[in-house]
């Protein structure tokens, strides 16, 4: 009883110390980073609570209100069948961001696994794996992603295929970094001492490799999210991603393209602004993090 409460107290202390450290770090943030963090925080909360704020009702077709411009009743106007655009953009942001986060996770997972494989096996495996990495790295993400979408959409569905398309195109730079880090780590005295001392692979990975790799992997993840948002919306916009009835940002933009000739500029404007805001805020935070984390990765982590 007392032992467990002691453990609880100490873990609470650690938690308190961590939040204290975070608070101290935040005081050093430049204004732009603080603004970005604030805006992104609001966006994420709004996206998570989208169902509470404005429930999405696809059947709320109001043919009297087709292509109404922004007004007090409809903040972002209505679309070509009279649905409230604000609700659709809000839900679209939630859908697109969720897919983007999962897609970025997929990319980071592939990159880390490939990097670890090459970096720990070495020799011929390393050479082969890195040549394959070169092939993937030399491909244009978007074009190659389309090939993957066409091949796998029938089996995985739109969302799954988008995640796969992003996951299989955005991993080479991280794989190269992970491999390089592992290679240089093995040369470092404390690791070679651990190897010489007969440490198990698992222990090496847990004590020495992972803590060194985590910052790079985390940063690669954050940097990939805006790319994934772009890819999802672009694929859906072209009709190759999510099914047309899903309110993803790309699908709303496709609606917007159809409505342009009828003068409905707002349908194209607002979902794009959502993408822009997400990309700018995440980009600002990632850039700040990258500069403070590891100046050397500045050039290497160009996704």
């Amino acid at each position, binding site marked *: 009883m007392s032992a467990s409460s002691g453990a609880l107290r100490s873990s609470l202390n650690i938690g308190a110390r961590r939040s204290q450290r975070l608070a101290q770090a935040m005081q050093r943030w430049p204004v732009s980073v603080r603004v970005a963090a604030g805006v992104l925080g609001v966006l994420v909360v709004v996206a998570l609570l989208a169902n509470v704020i404005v429930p999405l009702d696809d059947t709320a077709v109001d043919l009297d209100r087709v292509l109404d411009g922004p007004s007090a009743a409809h903040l972002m106007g209505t679309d070509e069948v009279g649905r409230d655009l604000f609700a659709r953009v809000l839900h679209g942001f939630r859908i697109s961001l969720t897919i983007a986060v999962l897609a970025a996770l997929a990319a980071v997972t592939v990159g880390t696994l490939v990097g670890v494989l090459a970096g720990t096996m070495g020799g011929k495996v390393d050479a082969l794996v890195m040549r394959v990495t070169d092939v993937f790295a030399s491909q244009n993400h978007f*074009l*190659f992603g389309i090939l993957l979408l066409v*091949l796998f959409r029938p089996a995985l569905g739109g969302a799954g295929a988008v995640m796969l398309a992003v996951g299989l195109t955005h991993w080479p730079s991280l794989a190269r970094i992970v491999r390089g880090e592992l290679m240089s780590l093995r040369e470092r005295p404390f690791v070679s001492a651990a190897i010489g001392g007969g440490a198990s692979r698992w222990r090496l990975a847990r004590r020495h490799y992972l803590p060194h790799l985590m910052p790079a992997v985390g940063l690669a993840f954050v940097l990939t999210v805006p790319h994934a948002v772009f890819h999802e919306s672009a694929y859906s916009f*072209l009709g190759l991603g999510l099914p047309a009835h899903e309110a993803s940002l790309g699908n709303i933009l496709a609606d917007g393209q159809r409505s342009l000739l009828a003068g409905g500029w707002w349908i*194209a404007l607002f979902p794009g602004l959502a993408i*822009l805001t997400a990309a700018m805020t995440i980009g600002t935070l990632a850039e700040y993090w990258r500069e403070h984390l590891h100046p050397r990765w500045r050039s290497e982590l160009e996704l």
Partner: protein
Amino acid sequence: MVKLITRRLAVLPLILLAVATVTFALTEISPFDPVEAYVGAENNVSAERKAEIAHAWGFDQPVYEKFGRWIYNLAQGDMGNSIVAGGQPVAGEIASRASASIALVGGALALVLAGGLVFGVLAAAFRGTLFDWLVRTLCYFNTAAPSFWIGLLALYVFSIELGWLPAGGTSDPRAVEAGGVDLEHLILPMVILALTQYAWFTLFVRNTMLEILREDHVQFARAQGIGELAVLLRYALPNALIPFVTLIGTHLAELIGGTILIESIFGWPGLGLLALDAARSEDIPMIVGITLCASVLVVLGNLLADVTYRIIDPRVREATT
């Protein structure tokens, strides 16, 4: 130099083989059924007919045989037949659409280089001023804004509202196919495509210039009383051009990828639109064909960048001859 070019060109088939292998492996792994894609919406096709089609196209053969035939055909320039081209060879269709894309990508590249250099150098020269801040902010905005969104807004403003430029397509597809330039229809897609890479180049030039302006030889030039404009243009710029050139190769791939979205928005009849049509019709041979062509272009672009790099940097030039 000749050695470099021949060596690189010798590696080209190997790179193509690697890309072909990876794409082949992906098509084999995927549950995608090419026969279904071929028969498309005709759902009254019998199982026997499907088997016949599969046999005729060789889909029912063992994997190694299919792979061998694919590579054999590829070596002879045969990338298979395309669905969107009505069963015609992929290669021929790509060739007939290439000139429209070359005009688009070439024009965009020229715009990117010119704009990136001018604004990058000016921002570096006036670093810390309002102008510099404006250039950097716009670039930052530009990198975060999706190109097709900017394209849509530009389409609305310049074509629909103001009516200055045509909304899309080309008035004379045959002329474009034959290599003619339909500038009126080309301007909007070209500028928007350039915008996808413009920010990157501008910021790169600015930062390289700032780095070089801190170097010893620039300080020494200043110490001799050489004017700031001459220092900028004759002492810093030539050195900044060297890393700049190497970027062109890598960013060519991005420009080619960008054509898919841009050509789709503006209805420009190039390879991007072809790739999109192919994707919508699940025309795998065509998409793979375009992917392979893009790989060749990227290799050639990198080679061109390396050759230029060696021409303008005396240090490297000497090391390679």
